[in-house]
């Protein structure tokens, strides 16, 4: 399998889907400047720069999606989604329902987030939980190049609005990407590493943290299973619950702030549906409830580390019950 970066994996997905379906188009601030190869192949009607105005970029995507196109919009950094909340939440997420099912909204809104560039919380703010909480949307946040490609392709083919989050810490990470269609379905988690003593549930950059923690735990005789959610909504409850029931111990790990984050949802799910199998409390290891700072060491400290994850898992396994 060829090894390419997440950025290139996404570029492949975009080109392949645009080739496959002439209704697919992409626009956003600098999209055409940054992807001249796509402009070359598909023309400037389908790859467009826009004015600097996230609201109308998103709104245009919503209107176009409802009337026959399949737009992809690049909204750059996740905090800028704040300017597009009405269009994404009140229009894309609700107008199908409010119209009694008259419209479909096949659109993808891409944005970047997460620690790595030391740019501070007006560029780095993990808000995926907002869109999981809002109705009518799907939310994807992959952890590796193959999934970035396979999930982006599935997102483009989906008939619903999909928020596609790119962890900037992963953007230039290489990974093996299979050739061919290599679709990854929405709503299906992956078992990134099997194990039977404790389950580490995560997504995006902290999947690697969990894998390293699992490696460290293995050295102490603890077999940790690592689940990569990949899609946050719809959440693959079955995979999470099956693992939780098997191991009886769950640590949820993510970079986003703790309160009402995706970790809260996973923990609540496990506490509700796998309670009888639990041998220990469900732990969350997450970013703190503060704005991510710019200063590099503080930014790094924001992200859950290998030691913290391993320690949380160890404490659960050691806990007598």
């Amino acid at each position: 399998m060829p090894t390419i970066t997440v950025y290139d994996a996404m570029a492949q997905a975009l080109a392949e889907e645009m080739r496959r379906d002439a209704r697919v188009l992409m626009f956003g601030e600098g999209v055409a400047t940054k992807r001249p190869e796509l402009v070359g192949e598909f023309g400037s009607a389908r790859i467009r720069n826009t004015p600097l105005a996230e609201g109308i970029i998103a709104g245009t995507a919503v209107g176009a999606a409802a009337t026959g196109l399949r737009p992809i919009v690049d909204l750059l950094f996740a905090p800028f989604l704040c300017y597009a909340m009405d269009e994404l939440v009140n229009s894309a997420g609700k107008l199908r329902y409010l119209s009694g099912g008259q419209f479909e909204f096949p659109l993808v809104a891409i944005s970047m987030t997460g620690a790595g560039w030391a740019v501070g919380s007006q560029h780095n703010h993990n808000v995926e939980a907002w869109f999981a909480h809002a109705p009518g949307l799907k939310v994807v946040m992959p952890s590796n190049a193959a999934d970035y490609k396979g999930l982006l392709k599935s997102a483009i083919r989906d008939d619903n609005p999909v928020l596609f989050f790119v962890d900037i810490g992963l953007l230039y990470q290489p990974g093996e990407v299979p050739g061919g269609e290599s679709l990854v379905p929405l709503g299906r988690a992956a078992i990134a590493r099997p194990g039977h003593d404790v389950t580490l549930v995560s997504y995006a950059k902290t999947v690697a943290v969990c894998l390293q923690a699992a490696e460290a735990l293995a050295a102490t005789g603890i077999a940790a299973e690592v689940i990569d959610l990949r899609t946050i909504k719809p959440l693959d409850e079955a995979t999470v619950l099956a693992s939780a029931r098997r191991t009886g111990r769950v640590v949820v790990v993510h970079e986003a702030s703790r309160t009402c984050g995706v970790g809260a949802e996973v923990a609540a799910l496990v506490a509700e549906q796998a309670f009888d199998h639990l041998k220990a409390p469900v732990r969350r290891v997450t970013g703190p409830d503060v704005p991510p700072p710019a200063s590099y060491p503080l930014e790094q400290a924001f992200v859950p580390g290998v030691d913290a994850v391993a320690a949380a898992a160890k404490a659960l396994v050691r806990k007598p019950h």
Partner: protein
Amino acid sequence: MSPFSSPALPSAAVPSIEHPEDLLEAMLLIRAYELRLSELSAQSGTPGTCTAVGQEAAAVGVLSALRAEDLILTNHRSAGHLLARGADPGRMMAEVMGRRDGYCKGKSGSLHISVRELGVVLTSTIVGGELSLATGVALSQTLLGRPGIVACFFGDGAAGEGIFHESLNLAAVWKLPILYVCENNEWQAFVHRRETMVGERIADRAAPYGIASATVDGNDVEAVRDAARSATAAIRDNGRPFLLELATYRQRGHFEPDDQTYVDAAELAAWKARDPIERMKARLAAKDGFTTGDFAGLQARVAARIDAAAAFAQASPWPDPAELLTDVYA
């Protein structure tokens, strides 16, 4: 490019409003529909609505200038646009009442009624929502090679939302065939327009974006139709957006029931004296020999339709409780 044929819009027959009497009858139908709902909501469990009483000429004048292939976006104050486009008042009332036979299965209520088969798409009650969506609808028309232009109705208040500015600018830069129709009715819920802007005209905001505009007497249905005709002709010709401002007045409250205590009585009276229906009626009488009897005939026809509509809506069942969970995802 247009190798893909997406479902044609609209798919149902759209009535044409041609003759002066048609204009009057369409306005009468809207008036009767809205007054009936106002009465119903004052008495019983019927939900309130945002009426556009006094603004009928705006809806009818613009709709009479559109073609069947054109698409329409509207907002919370949409009954006139829908009825002039040929929507069934019975299904509209059923929707207002939250009944199963409503155009949106009762899930919308009065505030976001879309009728895809008539090309009335993506109605939003978020002020400015229609402005955010119109550009995308027009982009579809252009890229999919469909002939119709897009008419987007909004209020003077919506022109205060930033998305108005973003929409106009993108439509200008991308050359999108949009007729922006601002119904400047002097009110923004409970705030007078004068409190929200310096100057009088929303249309002035078009020029900096390189967009042509016009302001006309929104209570003169023929003036509106003529202005809309020349605006749509320009759009069809050059593919660029146009902003048409209709100077009119909201004669009733923001949302029924509304006691209008905050409204200046003299201003209201002055505008009632310029009522669009009365004006058209007088013009017809003067020019075309339209008699009191003719008028009574129109009114009777309209009243019968509204009676039937109300009966239909009231007989329509509530949605099945299972409907709560449907229509979320495609």
